[in-house]
């Protein structure tokens, strides 16, 4: 009997461990199968270009990592079904960085050593992407991050690119246009996440407040794995600001819930999560009145966005945010770059050279890279009303 129990436990252990592995590293089967179908219909001769994707499939930022994977697969399916790029099909190899820079470096090194991988998409956070920058620089392979918005990142190497707005333009705009002009606050308290992204954004935000003549009455940072914000909140509360700005992504819902939990009814604005659907789910009534900014707004009312939203919801079960759209655009930009190579040989170097001039018009408006490999986009202001995001100000608000 004891032996049987031991055997059962060992087996279940093995099964679970194997299952764990399969979520960690998985080769996307969808793009593989669709590429098989389109082989017959289009003029492709079965050649495949494989891109690497490093994203936080598990961990604090899992919502976004899973979104990356889904968005990349959707974009590849679309491209492959339309006949591929220059006779090539696209495929992706996904690896889970768990949102940790050391994992990203390992993954990027593995991709760089794998001759089948022509370019890398990822990672989600600036910290992860910046950790990988020296590696891609040495290996000579493109690292196109959909969302890294630390202003230092794109300039770190010729091979580093990002589709997300640079915080050096977004944060000062947020301070001046959103907090100063739209909310009309004279005093503000800032809570910020102590990471590469947070430090850089925070610095630009403070500059913005200073230029706009807004007083920062409290300025508090916290570590990334923080769960209890009550002491920070008490601290902010004691300074009685007109508006609280939260600089974070994954922790925003927890922070908002805890602020409302202390019975504090202050105007909240957040820079980072964009129009995240999960935020409203996690905050419920607590999210009412929250102000966010976002470079693109994906709702069913926007007809162009419907196919993408539907496909995304089918894969993940929740609605996409701008972050996922950026991952989707990353694939198209790489496809543009491959297209521009034309009949030439597809090499990592050629992809990099052509990516610099690649551009596209899509759901997020016009996207092209600046000299460093960064991006700058106009933004929308949204507010939560009755459990939904409502567009309050259109593109171009508060532009000087």
């Amino acid at each position, binding site marked *: 009997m004891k032996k049987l129990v031991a055997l059962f436990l060992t087996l279940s252990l093995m099964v*679970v461990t194997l299952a764990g592995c399969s979520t960690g590293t998985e080769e996307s089967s969808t793009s593989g199968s669709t590429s098989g179908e389109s082989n017959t219909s289009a003029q492709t001769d079965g050649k495949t270009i494989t891109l690497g994707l490093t994203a936080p499939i598990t*961990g604090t930022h*899992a919502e976004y990592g899973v979104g990356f994977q889904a968005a990349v697969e959707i974009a590849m399916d679309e491209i492959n079904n339309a006949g591929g790029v220059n006779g090539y099909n696209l495929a992706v190899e996904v690896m889970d960085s768990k949102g940790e820079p050391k994992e990203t470096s390992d993954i990027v090194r593995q991709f760089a050593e794998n001759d089948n991988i022509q370019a890398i998409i990822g990672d989600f956070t600036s910290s992860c992407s910046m950790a990988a920058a020296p590696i891609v620089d040495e290996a000579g392979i493109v690292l196109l991050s959909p969302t890294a918005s630390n202003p230092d990142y794109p300039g770190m190497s010729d091979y580093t690119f990002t589709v997300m707005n640079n915080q050096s333009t977004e944060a000062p705009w947020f301070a001046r246009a959103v907090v100063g002009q739209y909310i009309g606050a004279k005093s503000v308290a800032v809570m910020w996440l102590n990471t590469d992204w947070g430090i850089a954004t925070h610095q630009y935000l403070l500059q913005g407040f200073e230029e706009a003549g807004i007083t920062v009455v409290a300025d508090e940072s916290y570590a990334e794995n923080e*769960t209890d914000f*009550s002491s920070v909140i*008490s*601290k902010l509360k004691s300074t009685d600001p007109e508006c609280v700005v939260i600089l974070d992504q*994954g922790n925003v819902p*927890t922070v908002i819930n805890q602020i409302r939990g*202390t019975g504090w009814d202050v105007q909240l604005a957040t820079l980072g999560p964009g129009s995240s659907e999960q935020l409203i789910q996690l905050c419920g009534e607590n999210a009412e009145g929250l102000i966010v900014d976002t470079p693109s707004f994906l709702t069913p009312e926007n007809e162009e966005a419907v196919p993408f939203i539907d496909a995304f919801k089918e894969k993940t079960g929740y609605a996409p945010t701008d972050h996922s759209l950026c991952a989707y655009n990353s694939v198209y930009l790489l496809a543009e770059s491959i297209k521009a190579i034309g009949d030439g040989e597809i090499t990592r170097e050629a992809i990099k050279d052509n990516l610099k001039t690649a551009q596209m018009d899509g759901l997020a408006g016009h996207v092209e890279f600046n000299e460093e490999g960064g991006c700058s986009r106009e933004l929308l202001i949204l507010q939560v009303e009755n459990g939904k995001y409502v567009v309050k100000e259109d593109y171009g608000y508060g532009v000087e």
Partner: protein
Amino acid sequence: MEYIINQFVNGICQGFIYALMAVGYSVIVGVVGFVTFTHGEVIVFGAFASFYIFLLCGNNLLLGVIGSFAASWLIGIFVYKICYERFFHAPRHIALICTIGVSMLLKNIAQIIFGPNKKPMLNIIKNKIYSFGIVEISKVQIVIILTVIILSALLFIIFMKTRWGISLRAVSQDKTAAAMMGINVKQTAMIGNCMGSGLAGVAGLLIAINYQTVYATMGSNLSIKAFAAAVLGGLTSVPLAALGGILIGIIENMGITFTSASLRDIFTFVFLIIILIFKPQGFSKKKGVRP
């Protein structure tokens, strides 16, 4: 002044949660005799059990507490069977490494079963703020403190007044002697492990209610705090571990009051190190830890 007092209240509330985790921890270490690293994951399973109970049966706190206790009890059996049962006579580090492995396993199982996303636990207790003069305390904080006090009292009664408690204390003091007195040591050790895990599960429930969110990876940080609090109490003393937990909560929050929240963990561990330099046995009078 008002602000400092409110920070103190925050600290006490957080300290009570740490205390409950630490109490569970020291029961496990005391009765089983091994250090565990699965505590954080047990906390997560307890929190998720209550999440599903609240989802299915409505916001019944008592049911939630029982459910999270029971779920963590089961995880406790699993951990005991894998990590401890066969290693009582093996070198101590084997069980320790085994718990580290099981902790990774449980964390990944939790992500597979519950998904990687955060889940909301909104308004389990209708929130209300009570003011006593300049002190403000929320209903959630009162519920947390009361739950911890009631559970600790129950644990004390079980330990001191029941046959089970006598066996548990006997096993905790000397396994060989307890076996000679006719106590089933393995079974008693398992019950001790399960009780400690159950308390951790309830701590998970309280954390989830306090933060209004629950997610699969929230355990690792908490496990270290529970460990620190238990070490302060000398690892095996239940009341001193509770004291350690409350002190850590207060010191963290007072530290944040005067500096930054980024330094939260620094306060905990610097405090731990200072205490250990001057009193290596923690707050307990005993020198060293029983084998």
